[in-house]
């Protein structure tokens, strides 16, 4: 029985290896259309962010007071703001800020959570108890409140915003990873590794971490969207990145509020960009979760 399972697995793996990538892509689109849509939008934003300096028609920080509050048109597709700056260019460069903060905060937060979660499960006992109570304290605060507290201590600026967003992510990821790692810890090969005399770090990094990658990746993808939203929220509140840096949340404050009635495009386009990016990352994250979760995959 066991042998036949291995054989079936090998056949499937062989089949997957042989399928050309367009087939795989079409298969993914057919099976997970929403996830694929999310992935396409994510890729679209990544490309925009990467090639912002090529794509953006204007300097995103250059004031042009003779063009203040221009409505969307041929010259400025998304219009201009109160400083006469081209909104489309600011949105394009804003993608860079959003994705940079999103990816860095999500990656660092999830990875630190992974290490702490696995270590907590592996060592157990007093270490686990103390660490989890500390996590409880952090998790007692909503993400945005915790981020606000951190940025209030550290001050504004892109580095501090990343730190402020990263810190609340750590306990959330650690808690999820720990629960998976607890079951991994009980599997005999961990005992075997101990019996072989391997050190703690080798057991954690070589034998436990690879087996909790699924929840880690799911958390990672989910965090990117949340980080983008948090960065936008902090910037909107004036605690995130500062003018003249193009950032979507920042574009929603100040003039966007003041001119909401007479120049609504100042608020609409950054709002749409945030919505679309967060929506796309959530769809993509859901698809990753479905793909990596054995229970959902079997369904």
């Amino acid at each position, binding site marked *: 029985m066991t042998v036949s399972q291995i054989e079936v697995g090998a056949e499937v793996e062989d089949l997957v290896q042989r399928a050309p990538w367009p087939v795989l892509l079409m298969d993914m689109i057919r099976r997970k259309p929403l996830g694929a849509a999310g992935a396409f939008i994510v890729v679209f934003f990544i490309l925009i962010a990467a090639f912002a300096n090529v794509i953006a028609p204007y300097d995103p*920080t*250059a*004031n042009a*007071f003779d063009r*203040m509050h221009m409505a969307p048109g041929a010259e400025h597709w998304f219009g201009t703001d*109160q*400083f006469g700056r081209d909104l489309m260019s600011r949105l394009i460069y804003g993608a860079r800020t959003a994705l940079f903060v999103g990816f860095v905060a999500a990656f660092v937060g999830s990875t630190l959570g992974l290490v702490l979660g696995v270590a907590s499960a592996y060592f157990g006992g007093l270490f686990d108890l103390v660490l989890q109570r500390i996590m409880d304290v952090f998790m007692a605060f909503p993400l945005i409140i915790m981020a606000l507290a951190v940025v209030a201590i550290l*001050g*504004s*600026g892109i580095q501090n915003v990343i730190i402020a967003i990263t810190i609340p992510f750590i306990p959330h990821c650690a808690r999820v990873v720990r629960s998976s790692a607890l079951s991994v810890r009980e599997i005999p090969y961990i005992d075997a590794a101990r019996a072989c005399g391997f050190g703690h770090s080798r057991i954690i990094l070589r034998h436990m971490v690879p087996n909790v990658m699924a929840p880690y990746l799911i958390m990672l993808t989910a965090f990117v969207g949340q980080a983008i939203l948090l960065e936008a929220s902090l910037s909107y509140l*004036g605690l995130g990145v*500062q*003018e*003249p*840096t193009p950032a979507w949340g920042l574009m929603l*404050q*100040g*003039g966007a*509020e*003041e*001119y*909401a*009635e*007479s120049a609504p495009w100042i608020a609409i386009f950054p709002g749409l960009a945030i919505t679309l990016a967060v929506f796309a990352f959530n769809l993509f994250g859901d698809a990753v979760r479905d793909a990596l979760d054995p229970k959902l995959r079997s369904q």
Partner: protein
Amino acid sequence: MTGRLWKTAPRLAVAAGLGVAVAFGAAGAVAETPKKGGVLKYVVPAEPPSFDGHRETTFALIHPIAPFYSVLIRVNPDNPGSPTDFVCDLCTEMPQASDDGKKYTFALRKGVTFHDGSALTAQDVVATFEKIINPPEGVASARKAFFVMVEKVSAADDHTVVFDLKYPSGAFIPALANPYNFIYAKAKLDQDIHWYEKNVMGSGPFVFKERQPGALISGERNADYYHEGKPYLDGFEAIFAKKQSLRVQAIRGGRAAIEFRGFPPKSRDDLKKALGDDITVQESDWNCVLLATPNQKVKPFDDPRVRRALSLAIDRWGGSKYLSEIAIVKTVGGVAFPGHPLAATREELEQIAGYWPDLEKSRAEAKRLLAEAGASNLKFTVNNRAVDQPYKIVGTWLIDQWKQIGLEVEQRVQPTGPFYATLRQKKDFDVSIDFNCQAVVNPLLDVSKFISGNRSGNSYGGYEDPEVDKMFDAMNRAADPAEQRKLMRAFEQRVLNDQVHSMITLWWYRIIPHRSEVKGWKISPSHYLNQDLSGVWLDG
């Protein structure tokens, strides 16, 4: 010199010509009978860094805290636009100067008490002005330079205070009428000189009720107030709302009746359009200017060439045209309040770096100076205050101006408390947005902002310039208006052109759209004046 010295000061001749208090709603208001009762709710854009009026320079202190305190004399609340109309608050009669204009004797009201029930005497007034004029080490006094002419303050008896001056000065009475000169209780100051930084206890029209950090400060009517029949209000709530849109919406939705600082033109138009006659608008020129101050303790800002280049890059004439549409700034000026006889004319301004009519030439010179100083690719951070109007808008504009000469500038924005801590204690900034907002229009003293840091309580550039100090002293001793003007030009030339200790951006313009039920409040050229609320009442 006579006792009416301040009235014969040059400012008197032009009091009517200042172009202030163009009040749409208030002008021509027929005297109405004030109604008693009600709680005035108003919005304040920032919280006070401390409660000590002697130390602070911000509206964030005056608007919520002034109603708790008395002052010795003040600008006439019924004529707050005048730079020469002063009346008694705690004193009984405006004094005549004696001893060839070098002695002023103030008789105090009897029976005045602090809110804790203790009697207010001449000793309290003396202790207050001792703290302002001669603060002990470690105690900040923002306006000590206003009182350079004062030799001694003493109490002749429990109800008589005497000021002895070193020399006759027309600047003394305006300095005394500064609304930040809250009268403190000597007992509290003796107990702890810093007591008033964290506590409130005055003798003003309202008694402190509560403070909810981040939310509001409230006060209730002082039943023992010494001005008969006042205050009219039962109380007030100063509600903190950092975002301008929130403050506008608060007024629009009736959650607040007024904001005493000022809104940009767009907000005025929106409120007027939405509420029609329910909104009254008062406007005035504003004795307030936004500056960019380089930290001369930090390289390369210790080099006058670099500072001059920064100033040369700024297109003030163009900025005035456009920024006045989106911000509460408008007028191009030098160190003195524009329109005042001591202020520079356009022709005089155009001789100063950064005011040249030829912008291209100006920026080419800026680049040349930077190259000469080895700072062509200079990167720095501009420290700014987390208040939209006009700080963040002007800060963003300045960054673009400096970008035009090849500089890469980032902005660090901080709430009011940390912003001041950076300027006063940490001093860890390259260039900071700074401001000079004064109460009574009195350029002779208002320019004390630009003298050496060891003499001025609010000069943050980290420099000492004896030449500037000498000019300041000479101006304040000069009796002849022509001589004063000549000295002011020399002072301005040194501060803005030769040494560029500070860069003036634009002077502010004050627009107050408020709910029409707010009565008894008149706009002035300063958002610090006339804020004790004792004469304010609600109609309906």
